[in-house]
């Protein structure tokens, strides 16, 4: 069976920025079964302090080496404990859990990966898998400030074009990442879908955009998640976008609401990975229920941990959505 509950060996636990850490774990059975978008549950302490395991999206999957990475920010006592763990330690880990992202296997396509804060993590192994499958990847990373962003170097090494936005304006676009994403989609729409999507154009691995961040948009106005009318009357008829075939997003709910709003407007398929308070990660406690609107329009409670965490962007129902 796929799940490894035997424990992992902690190889490295390093600080990426103040309060931001990356852990490298050796767990061959778990890693062999893992797909991008899946997560693991870590037990942090003995004697039920804290009681529940903590969920972390896999931020790196190296199947050959049997290694995986998780990236975490110290936000409470549990993650503070984790930040003090030394290399060489055995870690009680459960996973891989959840469904993960999917992508087309044949036709090379163009994917936009949109990450908000810690939601960047699961997009990193996805970028790697997409590039290996020959797809073109543009990344849009947003966070409160520059030191909340990570993975830029990896994305560059993979040949992904990345744009960043920070809410405090410390780097990239000053505001939310949906600003640069919207502009990118609009530019693609202007170019015309068919022209840009001509066979072979702009999709060959290794020959596409330069790596690194795009600071050209830094002077733009602060974007608001509410600026996009999304599915409102008349506004839902978008031009389509010639720049992107599919959007993958992970981040907090307001962020995902804005991203899926753009996807509706541009009629783009989207896969979104949700974050919510999680109890067991196994589908048993029903603590992480989220409202999902299925194809028939029926709103149902689904478990993020077991039915997700990745859902079709069209199905996620936001309470304040028209």
């Amino acid at each position, binding site marked *: 069976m796929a*799940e490894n509950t035997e424990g992992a060996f902690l190889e490295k636990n390093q600080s990426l920025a103040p309060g931001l850490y990356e852990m490298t774990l050796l767990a061959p059975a778990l890693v062999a079964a893992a797909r991008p978008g899946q997560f693991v549950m870590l037990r942090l302490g003995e004697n039920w302090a804290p*009681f529940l395991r903590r969920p972390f999206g896999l931020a790196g999957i190296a199947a050959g080496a049997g290694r995986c990475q998780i990236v975490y920010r110290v936000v409470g006592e549990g993650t503070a404990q984790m930040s003090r763990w030394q290399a060489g330690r055995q870690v009680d880990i459960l996973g891989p859990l959840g469904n993960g992202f999917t992508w087309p296997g044949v036709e090379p396509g163009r994917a936009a990966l949109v990450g908000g804060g810690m939601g960047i993590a699961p997009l990193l192994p996805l970028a790697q898998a997409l590039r290996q499958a020959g797809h073109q990847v543009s990344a849009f990373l947003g966070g409160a400030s520059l030191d909340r962003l990570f993975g830029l170097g990896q994305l560059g090494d993979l040949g992904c074009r990345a744009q960043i936005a920070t809410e405090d304006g410390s780097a990239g676009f000053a505001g939310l990442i949906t600003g640069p994403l919207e502009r990118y989609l609009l530019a693609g729409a202007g170019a015309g879908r068919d022209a840009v999507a001509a066979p072979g154009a702009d999709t060959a691995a290794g020959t596409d955009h330069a790596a690194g961040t795009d600071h050209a948009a830094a002077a733009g106005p602060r974007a608001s998640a509410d600026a996009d009318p999304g599915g409102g009357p008349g506004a839902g008829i978008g031009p389509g976008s010639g720049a992107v075939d599919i959007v993958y997003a992970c981040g907090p709910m307001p962020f995902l609401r804005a991203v899926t709003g753009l996807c509706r407007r541009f009629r783009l398929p989207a896969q979104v990975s949700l974050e919510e*308070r999680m109890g*067991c990660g*196994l589908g*048993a*406690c*029903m603590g992480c229920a989220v409202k999902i609107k299925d194809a028939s329009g029926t709103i149902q409670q689904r478990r993020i941990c077991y039915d997700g965490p990745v859902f079709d962007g069209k199905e996620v129902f936001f309470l304040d959505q028209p």
Partner: protein
Amino acid sequence: MTSLEVRLAGLTLPNPVLAASGAFGFGREFARYYPPSVPGAIMVKGLTLAPRAGNDSPRIAETPAGMLNSIGLQNPGVDAFLREELPWLKSQGARVIANINGHSIAEFGEIARRLEGADGLSALEVNISCPNVSGGGMFFGTDPRLAAQVTEAVREHCALPLIVKLSPNVADIVAIARAVAGAGADILSLINTVLGMAIDIKTRRPILARQVGGLSGPAIKPIALRMVWETAQAVNLPIIAMGGIVSPADAAEFFLAGAAAVAVGAGNFIDPHCVPKIISGLERWLAQEGYSSISEIRGLALP
């Protein structure tokens, strides 16, 4: 040779470690870790007459050595259970106990009627102690007269062993236990979760959307143990004990307090292998201590 088999009022189980209702779904989520036939029985997620979406989020809050939940009986309804879940559980060789929840005494009776004669069902557990729903729920479990009326209404349609699940949120659990015993219960299960709450000091608001919820986990084990110990002395019915059991030693304490079987709830959330680990640990411990069955240690800590 050590045997873990137990008999509780006509209910024979290969081992005395059950999966508690609300902590094990309908068994499917754990089937990738071990077969559904491994627990002594599976007490399925609380069933209602109509499907229920449950409460708004946040529905859980972590607390010291435990957690609060206010799921609100999210379930597909008794008919969908009969159609989609019970046949699968039966095919997997599981022993299934249906946990039932009504808004009214008549509704409890109606759910029992629909379950009457269902193939693959081993017992009914009448939940008069859910703290997370308005109308019904714990309301029936805090008044001896109402608790007895619910028991009678279910008994009328229940030829199977009838379990009544008691609430700890009462001044005198023994009074409730006596009332349901007099009304035809065969087995008692205790305790359900303890009503509690948690507040976020940053937002100055309760963490749970429904403000209060049920506390479970090792934090409530001493409360559960005391209530089992008291009830076992006063009422001559087998007891299925639950409340913070996460280890073989925890289970052993409850047998010593008079329980005939135990059930694991929140323990499943922190370790999906919790139930089989307790089963094998108990077997080792009994053999090591020179006992050949659970009944030999049952109630040794009673006065």
